[in-house]
């Protein structure tokens, strides 16, 4: 009963602790003749008292919340009656699912009465654990609060303590970035290693055929599956190249025009309009590519006698390119603006026209930054998912013809992971291996891009 209110209760207790500490410090101050005799303000004493109990309580609570399923599951599995004991991990997972559904009152009709019993036991174990954890948390809070309450005196440096704690919390928040990266690396790396144990890494990186369907029984025809990722890499590369062929010229030209030639009025209208393109969700582009652009290209191709697949790489690449235009143009805009006015003035002074200034002075000066921006855009094109999931094909086709359907890394990750999953089959693990490759590739591109951009920026500062 306490458990469902545990979190609010923790907060309530902390608030009470604050008030206790606050009033005790005031009382001490009164005895000594005013607040000026305290080392810190009363609210610092209050905060110290509150934080003393709150932080450990929250920590334990969070740890418990994140491990409770695992702990309770392990207990119930070890206690299963003989009649329900099963062999494999997969069957265990199914059984657990049954039990949990029964506990939640969503039991299937006509299920095993033994499950009902286990479900009862599950509930009991879970509630016991919850009781223990609630008791531990509340006792700990009470103890720590009392301790810090007793410690309050006029010489206690409460402000320094509180500020130290706040600073630590701030630091921990910024460390979440490192934890996230670590989480990404660990989650894709472990599953990938499991994958590479089944499929050798050489076959994966250099194999020419991709068909991840694994047969359920070992004796079925074509049961092996093929995990050669070259066709996928080629498809990704092709669609990204088409996208960049659209995005680089259009983005760059519009950035140069807007920053060097356009009058102010045109700029204030056109720039936000271009940025709308960046704000449209990718799923909308995907819908548009699949339903409007792809048929249009197919019909146009049919008109001049070319056979175009209805999920052609061209359609997906073209729409992806449009999506990336504002990305290229705003990054180029930044670097063009960073070129100092003195360079332009010098060029005009020598009699160059505006175009010549752009061509021979500004563009070369901005080039490293532009290259950095383009690299970032490439990494975005490679990692873009929804457009290709909706508009590109599923079959891994090793071709250089942009009118045929190809598939990409992201499409494969989505198709392999959406729907039912079995975490031991190479089919599912392959998605994580592809994710690892994608992560490493984009990481390298980003690192190079950031390096290039940073190096360039320092030249004028």
């Amino acid at each position: 009963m306490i458990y469902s209110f545990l979190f609010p209760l923790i907060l309530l207790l902390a608030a009470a602790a604050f008030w206790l500490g606050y009033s005790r410090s005031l009382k001490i101050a009164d005895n000594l003749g005013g607040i000026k005799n305290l080392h810190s303000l009363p609210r610092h004493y209050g905060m110290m008292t509150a934080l003393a109990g709150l932080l450990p309580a929250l920590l334990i609570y969070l740890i418990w919340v994140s491990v409770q399923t695992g702990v309770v599951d392990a207990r119930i599995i070890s206690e299963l009656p003989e009649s329900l004991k099963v062999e494999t991990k997969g069957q265990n997972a199914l059984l657990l699912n049954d039990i949990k559904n029964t506990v939640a009152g969503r039991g299937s009709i006509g299920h095993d009465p033994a499950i009902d019993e286990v479900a009862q036991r599950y509930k009991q174990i879970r509630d016991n654990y919850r009781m223990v954890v609630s008791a531990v948390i509340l006792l700990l809070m009470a103890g720590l609060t009392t301790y810090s309450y007793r410690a309050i005196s006029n010489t206690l440096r409460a402000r320094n303590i509180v500020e130290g704690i706040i600073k630590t919390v701030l630091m921990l928040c910024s460390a979440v970035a490192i934890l996230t990266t670590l989480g990404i690396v660990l989650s894709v790396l472990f599953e990938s290693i499991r994958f590479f144990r089944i499929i050798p890494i050489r076959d994966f990186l250099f194999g020419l055929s991709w068909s991840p369907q694994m047969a359920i029984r070992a004796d079925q025809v074509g049961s092996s599956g093929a995990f050669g990722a070259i066709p996928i890499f080629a498809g990704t590369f092709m669609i990204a190249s088409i996208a960049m062929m659209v995005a680089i010229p259009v983005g760059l030209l519009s950035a140069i025009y807007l920053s060097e030639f356009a009058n102010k009025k045109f700029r204030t209208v056109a720039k936000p309009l271009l940025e709308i393109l960046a704000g449209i969700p990718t799923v909308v582009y995907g819908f548009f590519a699949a339903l409007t652009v792809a048929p249009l290209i197919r019909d146009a191709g049919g008109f001049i006698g070319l056979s175009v697949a209805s999920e052609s790489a061209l359609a997906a690449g073209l729409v992806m390119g449009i999506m990336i235009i504002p990305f290229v143009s705003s990054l180029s805009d930044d670097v063009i603006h960073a070129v100092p006015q003195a360079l332009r003035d010098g060029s005009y002074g020598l009699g160059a026209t505006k175009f010549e200034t752009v061509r021979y002075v500004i563009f070369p000066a901005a080039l490293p930054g532009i290259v950095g921006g383009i690299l970032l855009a490439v990494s975005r094109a490679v990692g873009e998912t929804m457009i290709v999931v909706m508009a590109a094909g599923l079959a891994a086709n090793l071709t250089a013809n942009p009118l045929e359907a190809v598939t990409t890394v992201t499409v494969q990750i989505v198709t392999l992971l959406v729907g039912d999953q079995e975490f031991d089959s190479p089919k599912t693990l392959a998605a994580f291996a592809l994710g690892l490759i994608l992560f490493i590739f984009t990481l390298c591109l980003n690192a190079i891009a950031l390096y290039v951009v940073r190096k360039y920026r320092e030249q004028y500062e």
Partner: protein
Amino acid sequence: MDAQHKESPFSGEFNKRLKQRYQAQQRFKLLGISAIMFALAFLAFLLITIISNGYSAFRQTYVELTVNFEKSIFEGEDLARANYQALINRALDEKFPDVEGRRAKRTLHGMISTGARYQLMDMVQDDPGLIGTTQTIWVPADDDIDMFMKGYVDMSQPESDRRIKDQQAQWIQTWIDNNMIKLRFNRTFFTSGDSRDPELAGIWAAVKGSFYTLVITLALSFPMGVAAAIYLEEFAPVNRITSLIEININNLAAVPSIIFGLLGLAIFINFWGIPRSTPLVGGLVLTLMTLPTIIIAARASLKSVPPSIREAALGVGASKIQTVFHHVLPLAMPGMLTGTIIGMAQALGETAPLLMIGMVAFIVDIPGGFTDPAAALPVQIYLWADSPERGFTEKTSAAIMVLLAFLVTMNALAVYMRKKFEITW
């Protein structure tokens, strides 16, 4: 410029070259304008396509039926178990008494949406007094009829290729002549969850799912992002750990969103055991994804507060923490909020990571909390876009319009806040 070089004292050769140089500039300018026009034309094309495809989904075809709630149907105790479809079928048969044969009758009965019987059931359950009376009610038509009424069925094609047969067209004509069929505002679209039938499908479940997801995202990413920005901008010593954190944040901002989905699947779902398909896990994944955006915006905002504010506060004896929390943070808050709204708008439009954590399930029930299975608005769009029925194309476009409306509102709010609270020092 032209006037100047007409009077130019230089040779004809020079003037010719100068003219060529200006022509090159003109060509380049033209190229620049056409690049912008290309992008804008595409934007217009996209919006026009979506709107022209989707506006009709806000209206829905309804048919007038005179239903006799016969007592014989409600013999049993349980009102929910009565055969409501039979009531509808009889009403249709009475309207078209000359329809003979099982196939023709089945076609006729199929012209009313399967949702109609639930409508009748709700009516009877609300007011059991209806039993034995005859009522005239409006029920939704089947999606094929809806498409026909909206003019999407090409009647010049051979009959076998059409979803609407000649006979059905005749019946519809009878309804039209008697004023018994009309397009009304489509409330179902805004109040119900997903459905296999386009005429019964709505976005409310997805909107609520998105809402719960964004609440989690906002509640976690805003405080954490601001705290991280404060630390990095105001307290962090220049050392290796700090620069490692900075590199990490910049990198995470450019990591493909689908990778965050993989993280959510492997760690939040498989390792921590958070239930799949729930706004809770969706919110956690989107939090990690939007954190870098918010941190970067918040840092820029903190940077723009002039150092004199900090120096003044420190000078009168405030501690470093007091300086930041009492003086710098309030001044930087508008910029932080703007950045947060933009980050939330990104999170609202994000689809790929949600596919990874199972928010693509077919969900009819409207989620009531953070741990109910739910879809999100962009995922709903993805699901509908995959459906073959013509009726779903229309619904997809309409859902996109709703999503874009949310995004426009959020971005407009951000722009408004930036304009209103912008402080120039």
